[in-house]
Every structure is written in C-alpha cells, then in structure tokens.
C-alpha cells in the first residue's frame, strides 16, 4: 500500500526534502511529497481497501493505492 498526503494539503516534510536537494547538486526537482509504504501478506486481498480506510490511511488527509504482487 502506498499512502501519500492528499493533493493540496501542505506537506512540510516534502518541502524540507525539496529545499535540501539543490545543496546536494540535484537541480530541477519539484513537487516532492513524502508518504509511506506498508508491505504485508494477506489471505484476502479483497479487504485491503477497508483496511486502508479504517487504519493504514486517514482518508481525510491521505490518498492510498494498493498494489498486489
């Protein structure tokens, strides 16, 4: 599951990373956002959306995406 701040919500963590990049010689990088990734093994992948809605993400402030491998 990839969980990221919703578009339009100020993401100071992403901004801090973005501001640090020019000092390291990385130019031309914008719109940095920091989220998190949750890896798990599930017997019933059907319920992962519910799991994200109820616990892993806060739908008010975060979007999530489920990738099945």
């Amino acid at each position, binding site marked *: 599951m990839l969980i990221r701040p919703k578009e339009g919500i100020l993401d100071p963590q992403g901004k*801090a990373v973005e501001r640090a990049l020019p000092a390291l010689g990385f130019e031309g990088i914008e719109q940095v956002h920091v989220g998190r990734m949750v890896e798990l093994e599930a017997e019933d992948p059907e319920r992962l959306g519910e799991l994200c809605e109820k*616990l892993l993400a*806060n739908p008010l402030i975060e979007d999530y995406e489920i990738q099945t491998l």
Partner: protein
Amino acid sequence: MIWAVLHFPGSCDERDALHACEAHGDGAQLIWHESRDLDGVDGVVVPGGFSYGDYLRAGAIARFSPAMEAVAEAAAGGAPVLGICNGFQVLCEAGLLPGALLRNVELRFRCHQVDLVDERDGALLSIPAKHGEGRYYAPEAMLDDLEANGQIAYRYAEGHNSNGSARDIAGVTNERGNVLGLMPHPEHAVDPLTGSTDGLRVFDRLAQAVA
C-alpha cells in the same frame, strides 16, 4: 463530577490530568487502556503523550483500544470528554471530533506558553503547548461548517499559532458540544505555582456544556 483519565502505553501526561481533574471535580481515577469500565464516572479525559508510540499516525492505534470503545459510548450518551494533545489526536482519529492534526508547519516540536482565545466570549487563556503534530486541518467546507455551528472552541491569539493550524484553530468540539479537543495542555495550568490556573477554565467550559 467524577473524572476518568485514560492511560495508554506511551501516555505521559496522565498524572497531571489526574491532578487537574481532582482540582476541578470531586475525584478522578486512571483507566488502563484495556479496561472498558467507566461505571460511576461522569466525564473522561484522554490525556497527552505518545499512545502506542504514535506509530502509523498519532492517535491512529489508540482509537481501537477497549477503553476508547467505552469512551465512544459515553460520548454518544452525552458525557463530557476532553482530549488534550495526543488525546485530541485520538478523538479525531476515532471520528469523535472533526478534522485531523498534521506535522507542525516548520517540522519542529514546539514547547511554549501560548495565549488562547475562548471563542464564546473572547477571554484570553494562558496555557502551555508542546507538540510536534498540532497543525489542525480540515477541508475548507468543513471549516466553514465548524464556524457556522460554533464548534471552534479555542483559537491561538494573534502571533501564537506556531504550528500552522487552519484558521488559528487550537480546539474544537463535536456538534453536540460534549466532546472537546485541544492541542495546548490545560492540565499543566491548574496551579499558581506553575504560572497560570487558566487550564481549569477549560474543564469548567466542558462541565458547563453538559450541565
């Protein structure tokens, strides 16, 4: 009024909350997070700290504790519930209060005395604040509704909003008014020894709201 103060692994302000409840009401007791027993209790404080290590998101795991199930029931029945700092985060995660608390805008943990404005009468309260994730957020339409419904309890006075909270919001209530959450710590401001007793007025406010 008899208060219960919840105690999660990682809580750290439960002792001061207990002391404040004793100063305000007729007694208080600590309730361990695994207990659902709120018998004989009139109101509940969800205290500050770092419940369950604040893993995932602040307050996200505490909301699933047995004690919080009991708090949700008590709140639905009209009992006063006060969430302070991490407690505010827990109540938002539990859906008992609107909105969410995000990382402070400057990413720093801030610890200082703040002035709050009581939105009912404009009174100023001087209360300590200490948090890293206190930036109140709600979508614009929800903020408009909160203003229209009188659910904004406290705002940071001009120059005191150091976490970047939307519309300077420091504390909100639910629609009914019996659940109140705020980031600053009224339980640390109940004794002249520590510089202010304004915190007791927050407890008073909640007691009046359910009287």
